[in-house]
């Protein structure tokens, strides 16, 4: 019994030492943030405001916990040791090749899927009189054939049935569309290089193939040849640089590097001369203005720097500052080129940049922005475009992604 008490005593000393030293250091780190949050919340004058304050304080305490990233890495390491491929209650499933996917144990169909197609049809109808062409561009998700393979029965979210149904509904409603799955699977890019392992986004190389496919589709569908001699579609006319182990995608940021690993990121930019003005509004309403060549105006290479926090900044956001509520690229070298509006999500960051040299102007609206949203319908009334491209990844084919031209 004596030794039992002794071992308990030793542990109690460790427990107290760890608990108190960590708590003191943690409180010292969190106190300024908590104090700032409490000041920002104002006075507590009701049970509801007290509840809201508690909620905010709790969130701050959890988000700003001392050594949180290190703890997350430790957690990830434990999951690796246990050989786990499912992460955090099926938030993600890691496949045989280490690709992260969203998990789905059964498929749910969205009863409003046809309505979303009709919203695009209404958009088309509203701008048709102005001579504007509308096309839905459908990038793939990782669930396209041969990208993600699972030897286990861990069902990954398969967007293909939804994507097929939606494209069929667009066809029935007379909306042009481009299904990017085919050109990507037929391209020379190895399947494993189409997507990042730690992110749901496609790679820069896949985005470039998609850009070429869009130019080709415009030629076939509208008879407009933006790249007469194939110069812009030729990757040889672009510089490429691969940054090894440089990208930690949104899925990897959730799980930590120990569990997810890192992706290589390839930056592609034109060798030919370019000149743009770039304006955007970020999600906090801040305005950005840049002028100059492609790399000066459309790229933010800070994301690639080793000094930037890999847990906070993704290399994928190097193109056009990542996804923004609104941005506009004016190509001063090509004033006679077409004017395009992209209603898009983050898949279009590199696409928008690659299309810019062929256009006079590319505007982009992100309907899913949490703040600073732009009213799509009003924007189309106030501005004229030659083409409107709705570009949404299959996971965003829903009421949030297609939240415009709703039925009256």
């Amino acid at each position, binding site marked *: 019994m004596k030794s039992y008490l002794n071992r308990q005593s030793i542990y109690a000393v460790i427990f107290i030492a760890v608990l108190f030293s960590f*708590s003191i250091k943690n409180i010292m780190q969190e106190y300024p943030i908590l104090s700032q949050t409490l000041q920002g919340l104002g006075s507590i004058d009701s049970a509801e405001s*007290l509840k809201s304050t508690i909620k905010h304080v709790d969130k701050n305490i959890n988000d700003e916990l001392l*050594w949180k990233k290190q703890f997350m890495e430790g957690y990830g390491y434990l999951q690796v040791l246990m050989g786990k491929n*499912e992460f955090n*209650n099926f938030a993600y499933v890691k496949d045989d090749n280490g690709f992260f996917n969203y998990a789905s144990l059964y498929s749910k169909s969205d009863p409003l899927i046809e309505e979303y197609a009709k919203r695009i049809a209404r958009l088309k109808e509203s701008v048709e009189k102005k001579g504007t062409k509308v096309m839905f561009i459908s990038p793939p998700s990782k669930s396209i054939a041969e990208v993600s393979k699972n030897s286990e029965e861990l069902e990954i979210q398969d967007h293909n049935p939804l994507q097929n149904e939606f494209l069929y509904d667009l066809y029935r409603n007379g909306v042009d569309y481009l299904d990017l799955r085919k050109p990507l699977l037929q391209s020379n890019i190895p399947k494993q290089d189409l997507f990042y392992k730690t992110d749901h986004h496609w790679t820069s190389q896949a985005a470039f193939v998609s850009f070429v496919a869009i130019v080709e589709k415009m030629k076939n569908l509208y008879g407009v040849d933006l790249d007469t001699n194939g110069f812009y579609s030729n990757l040889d006319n672009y510089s490429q640089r691969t940054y090894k182990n440089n990208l930690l995608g949104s899925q990897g940021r959730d799980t930590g590097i120990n569990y997810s690993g890192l992706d290589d990121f390839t930056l592609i930019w034109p060798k030919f001369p370019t000149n743009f003005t770039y304006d955007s509004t970020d999600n906090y309403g801040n305005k950005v203005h840049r002028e100059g060549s492609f790399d000066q105006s459309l790229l933010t290479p800070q994301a690639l720097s080793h000094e930037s926090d890999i847990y906070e900044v993704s290399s994928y956001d190097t193109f056009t500052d990542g996804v923004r509520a609104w941005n506009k690229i004016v190509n001063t070298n090509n004033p006679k080129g077409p004017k395009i509006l992209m209603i898009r999500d983050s898949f279009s960051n590199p696409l928008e940049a690659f299309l810019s040299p062929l256009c006079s102007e590319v505007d982009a609206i992100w309907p899913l922005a949490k703040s600073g949203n732009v009213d799509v319908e009003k924007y189309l009334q106030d501005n004229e475009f030659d083409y409107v491209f709705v570009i949404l990844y299959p996971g965003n084919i829903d009421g949030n992604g297609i939240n415009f031209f709703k039925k009256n």
Partner: protein
Amino acid sequence: MLFASNIFLFYFLPIVLLVYYLLKFSRQMQNIWLFIVSIIFYAWGEPAFVLTLLGSIILNTLFSIIIEKYRSNTKISKIALVIICTLNIGLLAAFKYIGFIVTNINAAFGSTVFNEVKIALPIGISFFTFHALSYVIDVYRGTVVAEKNPLNVGLYIFFFPQLVAGPVLQYHGIVDQLKNRKSSWSKFTQGCCRFTFGLGKKLLFANSFAIVADRIFDLSAIGQASYNVPVLLAWVGSIAYTLQIYFDFSGYSDMAIGLGLMFGFEIDENFDHPYVSLSVTEFWRRWHISMTNWFREYVYFPLGGSRVSNTDKMVKNMLIVWLLTGIWHGAAWTFIVWGLWNFLFLLLERFTNLHKRKGNSALRHIYTLLVVNFGWVLFRSTNLYNAGKYFLNMFGLNNNGFYSDLAITFLKEYGVFFVVGIIFCSEISRGLAKLMEEKKQTIFSKVYGMVYPFMLASLFIVCILYLARGSYSTFIYFNF
């Protein structure tokens, strides 16, 4: 506030411990401090209900004084007892059962007799009510003296370690500790170890089993059109829930007991390896012991218990206790049927003396685990229809197949937890614990003694990793 949260572990607990021991010169000051922090602990999750519960404490204090003052006048003290018990139960009924009653009346009449009532359930109100009832009944019986100071009553009812999910403390068992407890380093060290074990049980095991159980019960509930749950998967789900509820609740009890020890309180054990039981009767002697004792002390014995003139009365008494046990757990038919399910097997064992028989221990163990497991399916299901569907899935009567890749995947992904969890529930862990406590120093116990503190420290660190990650978490008994 949850024990398994950053705010509790890195803000609340160190501050409470520090101030508590700084106030060592005065027990009264320590009690005031514990009462204040207990209110903060509760208010952190439910600020809206604090005043209601404080009001209830004052009422219980006043009525207990009246009961005591008029003890010689049985009529007045009885009336006072009835009033305060009605108020306590009424408060519980108003929050917990009114919606259920209205829904069933409307369903019975096939029309909206009363408008649907949706009242948020104050966390831990069932435990709160049991504590309050225990106090006033103990005073009425004269086993304890009525407390003049509402703060002491408040601390008994509101003491944060057992406030939201027990154990259910009987007032006569804790009253002396409220004023005369002795804090010691030995108790404190035991408390630290116990708390860490509980935290590990909750964060690592209960939460992992919860992921498996929740997924599979949800798959069964969404219906065959979306997903057909094969037999193997249904069994994995029910076993996962059987493990989850044990690790969740016993983990919480361990943390409560550990925290109590840190403050010098000795709270009775609430679990004693229930899954090693060889009968349902034995299971209920080992599972949620404090609740079983409460029902025995305040319901079963007053009704006459087993020492009644005829068997019919004994059966009636048991039926009342198990109906109440079911209802206490939740306002749903699943809980009532679960209570009756247990009653049925306890009665069967009483008549056959199964729980007293020797031999066939393997068979009796399997029988007990099956009865308990089926009971948990009822307990976990959102309604009787879903429970029925789940049972059909378990027995392959739902046009479902037997084999499931997903079941194998769950077992593979959570294999570590299943293996270690089952060992912790079994005789093996009991044997190991016995071995550790043997006075005779074996090499094994010496090595264990050396690695024990570091093993526990590693467990604590791993718990912090899980906490920091903010993994899937829910406390089952918070809803009761």
